[in-house]
């Protein structure tokens, strides 16, 4: 365990909150100050998070940068923070995307500027807190806390059907998380009864050995809650609405970080806490993931609205992530994690692109465009690169992730692998078709003839996105080596733990069989 003199994770969590509190007292008329101030805060936050990447010990098997303080010791609630290779990358993604979001809202948000940036900083606090928390209560607090700013972002600064979308988003997520809370409590008391220790620390609870039937219930509750957030196939319906109505930055952060909380939750909580149930759930989860991949792709093909199209493509992409995670082999899990980052960058990028064109034309309908490539050449270049990254062209980041996931999927089950591969083709179809309809052809609309090409700020945003697309595409090792040890440990833990359960199960079944044998002997 690295002992740090500076509580860097706490700093990362509370620094944006501090910024938000200071902003409360800012003069609302001076919107330039508010924007610059928020930008500075988010840049400092990004700068503070980068040392994490370099100081992170690749070979360490335990949590790093751990901070522990008693919060309510009688109940075993503690203030326990720490990150491993998986959350490290997600924290960095969060701080990076927040800067991008602040930049891309620069002109898009004109009303209630002050409240907007306060909400955003508040959201950043909640997101980083969720990623760093290792105590279940602390995690739950941050998890719920993420809801409120996102609800406000969609509901206040969103599109015409924002109220419907905001409430739907809130209710779906809330319904899932209350079940998780019951499961958390059940686990907590179970662990107490078994060991006599009250604790909410995940690291302790990993050691619990839970009867298999109970595990199914608990895993079910956790999985439902996370699956809603991911979102997996049958519970995905809130996502298109939320994405379509949210402001650009809201969509970026929703796609980039919030959805990852679901998949992250599976890796951190649902699977290692209940490994046997998770392994038994592989067929179910994989089938749902494959349905998500294909269904998401087919539905997005038919969407007339750009944002809705990208939203459904998210369902498809997250299906890959889930498939990878539930392949339970090195390639699958690593690919899944990598795809989480990729999706943040490439789908985030697509939302930015749509936001930029929306700012110019105030429409997102594909049919309102056509031939934009001629009018806005720089825009066209960036759009193309990000589109290709989304359809996983070799050389871009998407390829690495998707390839590994499919490799893992084939290794574990050929049927799922084969079916999932069709998603790659479908993905290319809907993305390229969309690109063709928007960018190529002749300019049919009068309004489109005089569109201004990208400005300096917009180019800066997109260059930084493209930078990561290329970097992660050609030099993935830089990121993989951060998570290698963690993933190896994670898989070893899940496998050995579930093997233990298998043995236990057989032992409980075996005596019963023996007894039955004895009974039959007696009757004879």
């Amino acid at each position, binding site marked *: 365990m690295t002992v740090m003199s500076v509580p860097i994770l706490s700093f990362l969590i509370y620094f944006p909150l501090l910024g938000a509190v200071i902003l409360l007292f800012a003069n609302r008329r001076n919107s330039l100050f508010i924007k610059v101030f928020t930008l500075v805060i988010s840049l400092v936050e990004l700068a503070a998070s980068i040392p994490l990447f370099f100081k992170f010990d690749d070979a360490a098997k335990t949590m790093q940068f751990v901070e522990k303080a008693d919060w309510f010791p009688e109940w075993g609630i503690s203030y326990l923070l720490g990150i491993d290779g998986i959350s490290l990358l997600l924290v960095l993604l969060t701080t990076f995307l927040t800067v991008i979001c602040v930049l891309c809202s620069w002109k898009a948000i004109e009303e209630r500027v002050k409240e907007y940036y306060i909400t955003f900083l508040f959201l950043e606090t909640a997101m980083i807190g969720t990623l760093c928390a290792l105590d279940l*209560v602390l995690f739950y607090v941050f998890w719920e*806390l993420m809801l409120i700013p996102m609800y406000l972002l969609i*509901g206040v600064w969103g599109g015409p059907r924002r109220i419907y979308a*905001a409430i739907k988003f809130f*209710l779906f997520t809330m319904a899932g998380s*209350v079940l998780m*809370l019951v499961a958390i*409590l*059940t686990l907590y008391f179970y662990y107490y009864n078994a060991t006599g220790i009250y604790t909410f620390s995940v690291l302790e609870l990993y050691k619990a050995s839970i009867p298999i039937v109970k595990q199914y219930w608990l895993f079910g509750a956790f999985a439902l809650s996370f699956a809603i957030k991911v979102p997996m196939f049958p519970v995905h319906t809130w996502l298109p609405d939320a994405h379509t109505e949210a402001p650009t930055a809201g969509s970026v952060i929703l796609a980039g970080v919030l959805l990852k909380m679901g998949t992250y939750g599976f890796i951190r909580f649902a699977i290692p806490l209940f490994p046997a149930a998770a392994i038994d759930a592989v067929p179910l989860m994989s089938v749902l993931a494959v349905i998500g991949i294909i269904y998401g792709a087919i539905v997005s093909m038919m969407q007339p609205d750009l944002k809705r199209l990208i939203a459904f493509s998210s369902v498809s992409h997250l299906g890959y992530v889930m498939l990878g995670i539930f392949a339970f082999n090195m390639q699958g899990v690593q690919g899944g994690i990598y795809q989480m980052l990729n999706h943040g960058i490439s789908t985030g990028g697509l939302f930015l692109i749509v936001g930029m064109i929306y700012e110019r034309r105030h429409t997102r309908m594909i049919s309102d465009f056509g031939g934009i490539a001629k009018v806005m050449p720089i825009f066209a270049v960036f759009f193309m690169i990000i589109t290709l990254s989304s359809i996983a062209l070799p050389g871009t980041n998407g390829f690495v992730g998707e390839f590994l996931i499919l490799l893992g999927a084939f290794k574990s089950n050929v049927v799922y692998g084969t079916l999932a591969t069709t998603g790659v083709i479908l993905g290319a179809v809907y993305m390229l078709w969309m690109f063709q309809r928007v960018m190529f052809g002749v300019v049919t609309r009068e309004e489109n003839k005089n569109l201004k090409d990208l400005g300096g700020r917009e180019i800066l945003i997109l260059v930084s996105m493209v930078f990561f697309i290329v970097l992660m595409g050609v030099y993935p090792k830089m990121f993989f080596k951060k998570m290698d040890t963690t993933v190896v440990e994670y898989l070893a833990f899940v496998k050995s733990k579930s093997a233990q359960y298998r043995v236990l199960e057989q032992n409980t079944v075996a005596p019963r069989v023996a007894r039955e044998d004895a009974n039959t002997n007696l009757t004879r």
Partner: protein
Amino acid sequence: MDASIIPACEFRWIMPEIMLTGWALLLLIIGGLTKGPVASKISGVLCVVGSIFALFFTLNLWGTNLDVFNQLYSIDSYGTFFKVLFLCILILVSIVSLRYADREGIGSGEYYALLMFGVLGMMVMTSSHHFITIFIGLEVMSLSIYVLCGLLRGNATSVEASLKYFLLGAFATAFLLYGMAMIYGSTGILDVVELKKYFLLKQPFSATMFVIGLGFLIVGFGFKIASVPFHMWTPDVYQGAPTSITAYMATGVKAAAFGALIRVFFTAFIPFQFGWSEIIWVLAVLTMCVGNITALVQQDVKRMLAYSSIAHAGYILVAFITADRALASSMLYYLMAYSFMNIGAFTVVIALEKKGDNNSDIDSFAGLGVRHPFYALCMSIFLLSLAGVPPLAGFMGKFYVFSTAVKAQYYWLAVIGFLNSAVAAYYYLRVMMYMYFKETIGEPGTIDKAPQYGLVMVICIWALLHMGIFPKTFLTIAQKAVGIFS
């Protein structure tokens, strides 16, 4: 010791009660001598000062555990906990009333005197393990509140509320008294602690009359805590009564009824837990579901808060069912959190109401976020706490209450409870939605901005945040309070 002799020194243990009585009588005299706004102000300030004194005396009692007046009255940490809570409620409500009662023209000596008498009744009710004393406390409280509800004499709904509450309340009281009588009939004992000893000796004990008596007790208390199906009066009374009184009733009366209910059941009737917990299981589920589902469709915020208070009673009942005496502290903590968030929310409602009109249509909240950001922010905090969103006290309360149920392996109850709180989130958020997402509808009413309201709201927010982020202090106190059951 001769039962007819009461040592004079025992009176020092009931200084808070004496204080309140004396002060209330003084206010009555003032009310009889002078009328008008000045008198109203003076009585209001006196009421606040008197309650602070009483609070001071009560805090000194913390840690004392003894029975006085021939076991008719007891001074213990459980009672003291509730006394402090009631006095806090009284102080907050009278600060609000300084402005509100003045505005509505109901502020006078009687108003404040009745507030104090009501709290006196609550204090008596929760500090005794003798049925008769509990009953007297309940009556003192109820009679004051019947009058307080109808103080807006010119307003038909207020008078209706008063009459309705009185008639139904009288029935409920009769049930309670009848229940006590039947238990006395079957055991010959009126003292809860004695009952406990009696049951320990006579296990297994069963008598038809006793069972009926127990049922009647549940009905009587169920009425006061507004649990379904004894809740019918709640929405009308809460809506019709002056809003400050609604806040007072929703918090004080409910806390007092729960205080007495928990004391009676957790002391004496634990051996019969399997019998009554099944009844209360159904009551709790009904209370949560009916309260929340009906609240969904309300257009009036005051009425919505009335239904939500029914639902909250259901949440508390969830912990009550488990009969886990060590974790009874969860209910105490919840009541404390509940009181602060409701008083806060009702204060915002008061600020938004028009003079003489005790309705608060949800439309009047539209655009509040732009017009009055401070009030909107405060209301949001109260609503989020009611919805149980961390890190506010409402979350910790729910967490604690439902964890009690999970610990006792009432998993389905906990699931129903949590699902209910997800439903509840919808209507709390709906008010937030009106405040922040909607444009002002029609002519924006003027908002009654008074420092009194601001003070109360800030106190409530501080309490909610403190209880939510550092629950330890409060839980330790609550745990000490329920120490009397172990």
